[in-house]
């Protein structure tokens, strides 16, 4: 079992976060923090707000209340003279380049080859040279087990292969924080293991902070330092995976786990 690094300022901190879509409140008074190198898995029934949390960190959703800090700096809004003011797009972009995300539906760019998908942002966003980015891309493709697919078209690959390319693409940006949003939910059961093994390997060999939403409970148990159980936009229970999975204290957690573990 991996151990988190020594305590320091949290990499991600949610302070009184509220997210509403119109009148529908998805998250309310949410406070939690994630330390550097920590891997946190969010579990809970659909509609409990887990994915919304990842999307808020990736700035894909507008934060309607409260504050999110990345490396101690405000990601979307800061408090100034008692008022909540938006941070500048430039500041937001600077923080956002430290965050990477892998999506359920892969979202590879179909107008580019596998290699081009991986090197596009390192070259044009981080300013790496083409040679540097290409070399890194080839080693990442090696790491995800697709060394010979660089010049292929994304749509000619299977779902599992596409997701491995998407992982390589996210890692090519050298993120401090990696958000994994149900990355195996759209895959055929027989390839889920491959993708999870690659992520286990990333977890073992890097110090990247991970925020994970998954229904793969054994993966959550193996990889995460902390599991947070959500229901109705609130944290019902949180703790070490061995505690949550073998001896949950909250009835709602017990009920949820027995339901998902029965399905699995």
């Amino acid at each position, binding site marked *: 079992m991996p151990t988190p690094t020594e305590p320091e300022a949290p990499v991600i901190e949610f302070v009184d976060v509220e997210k509403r879509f119109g009148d529908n409140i998805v998250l309310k008074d949410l406070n939690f923090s994630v330390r550097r190198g920590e891997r946190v898995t969010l579990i809970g029934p659909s509609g409990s707000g887990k994915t919304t949390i990842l999307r808020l960190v*990736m*700035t*894909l959703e507008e934060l309607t209340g409260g504050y999110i800090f990345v490396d101690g700096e405000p990601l979307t809004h800061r408090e100034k003279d008692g008022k909540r003011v938006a941070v500048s797009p430039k500041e937001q*972009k600077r923080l*956002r*380049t430290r*965050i*990477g*995300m892998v*999506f359920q*539906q892969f*979202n*590879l*760019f*179909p*107008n580019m080859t596998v290699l081009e998908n991986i090197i*596009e*942002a390192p070259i*044009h*966003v981080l300013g790496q040279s083409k040679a540097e980015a290409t070399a890194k891309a080839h080693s990442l493709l090696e790491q995800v087990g697709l060394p010979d*697919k660089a010049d*292929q*078209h*994304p*749509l*000619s*690959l*299977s*779902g599992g*292969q*596409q997701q491995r390319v998407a992982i390589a*693409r*996210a890692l090519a*940006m050298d993120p401090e924080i990696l958000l994994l949003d149900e990355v195996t939910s759209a895959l055929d059961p027989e390839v889920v293991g491959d993708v999870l093994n690659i992520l286990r390997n990333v977890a073992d060999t890097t110090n990247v902070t991970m925020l994970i939403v998954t229904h793969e409970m054994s993966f959550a148990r193996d990889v995460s330092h902390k599991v947070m159980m959500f229901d109705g936009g609130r944290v019902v229970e949180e703790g070490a995976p061995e505690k949550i999975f073998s001896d949950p204290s909250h009835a709602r957690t017990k009920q949820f786990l027995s339901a998902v573990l029965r399905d699995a």
Partner: protein
Amino acid sequence: MDWLDQQQQNFESLQNFGPRLWDGFLLTVQLTLVGAALAFVIAVILGLMGGSPKWWLRTPARIIIEFFRGTSLLVQLFWVYYVLPLFGLTLESAFTVGVIALGLNYGAYGAEAVRASLTSVASGQWEATVALSMSWQHKIRRVIFPQAWALMIPSLANLLVHLMKGSAIVYIVGLNDFNFELDQLRRVTDAWFAYAFVGLIGYFTFALVLTQIMRLLEVRARHRLGQGLSMREILSPAPKLPTGIQPGGAS
């Protein structure tokens, strides 16, 4: 005079008018191509503005689009040629006037095609560009537009043919385009021969060439997105059966 003699005379007139008709045809080709180039630029700019979440970009785009779609090309041509000079804005050449009127009118229609196809690009693609911290210009140029392009070509092909036919109206500002020369031919022959025969063949051939070029552009754009056959496969004398998207699990 019997019908055959009449036709013989018509064809002699056609021969005499040949060089003029050809010049007129070339002018129509130029008007169409330059007008279409301008219309495309206007369509992309207005389409991007019209699809923007920022109201101060969206609102002016909407006003311009609705204005130029809602007034006829003829009226716009009159405005550019006869009314703007009253405000001290005179365009020297009738060709420029024709191109501007065609560009604005069809650009406004094209803007809707551009906007619609930009919004048709899967939301996951937009989200991936955010996750990779791409700037707005970068994501549009490298990710979103190349995908929207394949979607907008069929609409643009339609508009291109409309624009070509619309160009027949520019003779009213004194341009000797194909339509004008056809009218000259009609004076010495007859309406049936000039329009229903020579005009039909001229415009139809040009339209056919334009639509085929657009079709090939679409094939190429789709192939680049991993859909359908390549241009070479389409043009090869022994066409393969279309296979569409290759099934996954290549290895």
